[in-house]
């Protein structure tokens, strides 16, 4: 399977803490994307980082990319209960074809 892996599989934290999720992918990517999925809003695009970028920020999100190690991390700072969701990385190796990872289930307790 080409599917990447995410670590940890599940993460529980308190509101206000930071959450870090890691993604290992398998292909030579054009870019890597992160998505969030919860029961209320379905699967939503969060952020995209291109293969020539090392770090990117969007609000409380920080994504890093290490193409030599084929890995990426997503950091959510000052987490909120509303951040409770599953988070998926998705590697794009052909134009617009995405391979999703296995996901990290994040639970943020008030």
């Amino acid at each position, binding site marked *: 399977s080409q599917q990447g892996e995410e670590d940890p599989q599940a993460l529980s934290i308190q509101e206000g803490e930071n959450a870090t999720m890691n993604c290992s992918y398998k292909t030579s990517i054009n870019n890597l994307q992160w998505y969030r999925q919860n029961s209320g809003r379905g*699967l939503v695009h969060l952020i995209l980082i291109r293969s020539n970028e090392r770090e990117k920020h969007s609000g409380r999100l920080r994504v890093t990319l290490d193409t030599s190690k084929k890995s990426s991390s997503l950091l959510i700072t000052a987490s909120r209960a509303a951040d409770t969701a599953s988070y*998926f990385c*998705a590697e794009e190796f052909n134009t*617009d*074809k*995405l391979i999703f990872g*296995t996901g990290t289930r994040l639970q943020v307790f008030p």
Partner: protein
Amino acid sequence: EAGVAQSPRYKIIEKRQSVAFWCNPISGHATLYWYQQILGQGPKLLIQFQNNGVVDDSQLPKDRFSAERLKGVDSTLKIQPAKLEDSAVYLCASSLSRLTDTQYFGPGTRLTVL
């Protein structure tokens, strides 16, 4: 702007029955995708359309699954006959073009095969 619409939201069928899912992408989006998401896993691409042509169906089990996008707008995914392992959420997504990075997902159809 209206999002990607899918119906039905839920479907329960017995094995060997047939089922069809419908998707209406965001207006003006040329590229449409169908994904299968099994519980506890990430979505897996089944088929990708560019307008009404198939771009990639390499992971579509063609002996039982079929999909069409006849007028280059809405699309239908069919399973005939269904197996127990087809129980999953079927997600439809669309993007403006193949050169656009962001895919927009619909709410999905949760299929249970008994």
